[in-house]
């Protein structure tokens, strides 16, 4: 149990850059999720912490030790691999026991520790089986059991749920959350599934192209995305982003005009708002556009509109119906709008 610090960590393969200038401080007992699209460097970051990949530059600290030069076995971490990495020739019992066996824990303690871990991941009935004789979810739990059989400084989990079906994923997600709450071990969890990130994390690190985009709590990331990438990545549907111009607090683009925005900005800008922050009503200060498509989701209806050359989504009550092509008016409270720099995509100050 310890805090983890990554100081300007970089990973390059020749000219290819996998992780760029990664700077992060993870608190003790924190559940941190690395979230980002495929190929953004999540696994690479985790593998550098585990010692399976050398860092090109920067420092990794686990607790008060600088571990850059340490072998994986000396870093005192446990890792759950995306493909589980179970030992096929050993039974479940021997798989779970392996870490304490190679780490020379006294023999008398083995059985007790293995049984405790097996109980936690609910595998007591399968201890004599080989991994090949287990279902995907059970294998996943073996990998988890093997990780928790000893008390490491940090748990690393690389997309542990990606091979499970949707239902199992939900229940195993809850198990992991509960387990981490009981064990209180600092955990780094990699995923590209934002729902997993939102439900599990104390803090989320959103990554793209090897760079950190934002580090914040799930709510903060949802409510105040740091740039257009985060805004467009988080949420289902993602935030609507419209390119237009702002002049003395008035944003305008094709089919849209919003007043009452912060007035210190002017010129081209990107405006963002969430589908559920729009209201269906006849107002001047808003969107007036023909319906492009309608989706009925059961608990609500989703209206797609063409605004400023982009398709945007508006959430409407479930009984709302409109013909494709008919005009609708949508009102948006300026305080629910987010402003982003048109060039860099960075969030602009919202103070009026």
């Amino acid at each position: 149990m310890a805090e983890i610090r990554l100081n300007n960590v970089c990973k390059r393969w020749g000219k290819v850059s996998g992780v760029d200038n990664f700077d992060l401080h993870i608190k003790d007992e924190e559940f941190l999720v690395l979230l980002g699209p495929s190929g953004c460097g999540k696994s690479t970051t985790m593998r550098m912490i585990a010692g399976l990949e050398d860092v090109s530059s920067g420092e990794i600290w686990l607790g008060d030790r600088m571990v850059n030069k340490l072998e994986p076995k000396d870093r005192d971490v446990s890792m759950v691999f995306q493909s589980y990495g179970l030992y096929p020739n050993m039974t479940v019992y021997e798989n779970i026991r392996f870490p304490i066996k190679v780490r020379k824990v006294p023999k008398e303690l083995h059985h007790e520790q293995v049984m405790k871990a097996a109980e936690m991941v609910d595998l007591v009935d399968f201890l004599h089986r080989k991994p090949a004789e287990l279902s995907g979810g059970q294998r996943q739990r073996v990998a988890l059991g093997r990780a928790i059989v000893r008390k490491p400084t940090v748990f690393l989990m690389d997309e542990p749920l990606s091979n499970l079906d949707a239902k199992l994923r939900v229940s195993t997600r809850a198990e992991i959350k509960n387990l981490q709450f009981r064990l209180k071990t600092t955990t780094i969890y990699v995923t590209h599934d934002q729902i997993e990130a939102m439900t599990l994390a104390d803090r989320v690190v959103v990554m793209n192209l090897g760079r950190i985009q934002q580090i914040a709590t799930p709510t903060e990331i949802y409510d105040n995305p740091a740039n257009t990438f985060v805004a467009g990545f988080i949420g289902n549907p993602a935030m609507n982003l419209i390119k237009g111009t702002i002049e003395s607090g008035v944003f305008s683009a094709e089919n849209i005009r919003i007043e009452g925005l912060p007035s210190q900005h002017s010129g081209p800008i990107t405006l963002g708002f969430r589908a559920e922050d729009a209201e269906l009503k006849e107002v001047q200060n808003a969107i007036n556009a023909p319906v492009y498509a309608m989706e009925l989701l059961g608990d609500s209806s989703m209206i797609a509109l063409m605004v400023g050359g982009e398709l945007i989504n508006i959430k409407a009550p479930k009984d709302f119906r409109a013909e494709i092509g008919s005009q609708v008016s949508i009102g948006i409270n300026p305080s629910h709008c987010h402003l982003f720099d048109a060039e860099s995509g960075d969030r602009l100050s919202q103070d009026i």
Partner: protein
Amino acid sequence: MEQTTVNRRPLLLSTTSSLFLVLWLIVAAFPFLWTVWGSFKVEADFFSRENWQLAITGLNTIGQTGSAFTGDGYQGAWIERDFWKAAWNTVIVTVSVTAISLVLGTLGGYALARSARRYTLWILITALVFRAMPHITLVSGYMLPFFEWNVWGALPTAIIVLVAINQPFALWMLHSFFLSIPKDLDESAMVDGCTRFQAFRQVVIPVMWPGVITTGLFSFLLAYNDFAVTAMLLNQDNQTMVPKIASFLGTVQTEGAVMYAVAAVVSATVPLFMLVMFFQRQIVSGLTAGAVKG
């Protein structure tokens, strides 16, 4: 009516295939069984020019020894002509070659399979070229230096050359077995507390076992059956079984010496059968791709 035609075809097919199998078995097994049978006869019977049936009836054998079967061939080869020594030398050579090939092959194959460097491919290609060369070219190249250094004729010399000949094959074979084992396996072992070598020893090799057995068996057979190297590089005292049998055949002047060769051939073949029988399960799973995956 229709029923019978439907039934007849598989019957016909199965009879044909059984017949074919039996025929093939006879063709393949006959020479060996014939030799085993003949090895218990005397030369006048087994190599009779007038009447091949003598080999079956064994009239001369009865005449010369008093019974239809005789162990004279074995007695002569093993005791009089020191075939036991050749057998012992074969044990030394084959076991050493197999052991050294496997140690170097597993370590090297593992390193090559896990290395991301580009030169690994070139090492493997070079190995293949050496494997493709006729063995005798290697031997002729070695001859002169071995004489000069005064190491010609000794067992270790032949062992080293045989290892050199066999290593490319062992390396290739084990390399591809290691490639079929996911990297995650070693990596989780290392995170779990193993050094790279412990991960190799405790996690990868146990999973690899069929591959090791299969490669070991082929290495064993190469050393066991080799004639070119052992005949050229070993002196009379250190001869292994195969050149020894050849030398029996070369001295047919003495009556019965050719029967020594026959007895020796049978003696040299039996261990191979036992070996293949003993390891057949591992060999089958080693030769079946994907068997090593969890």
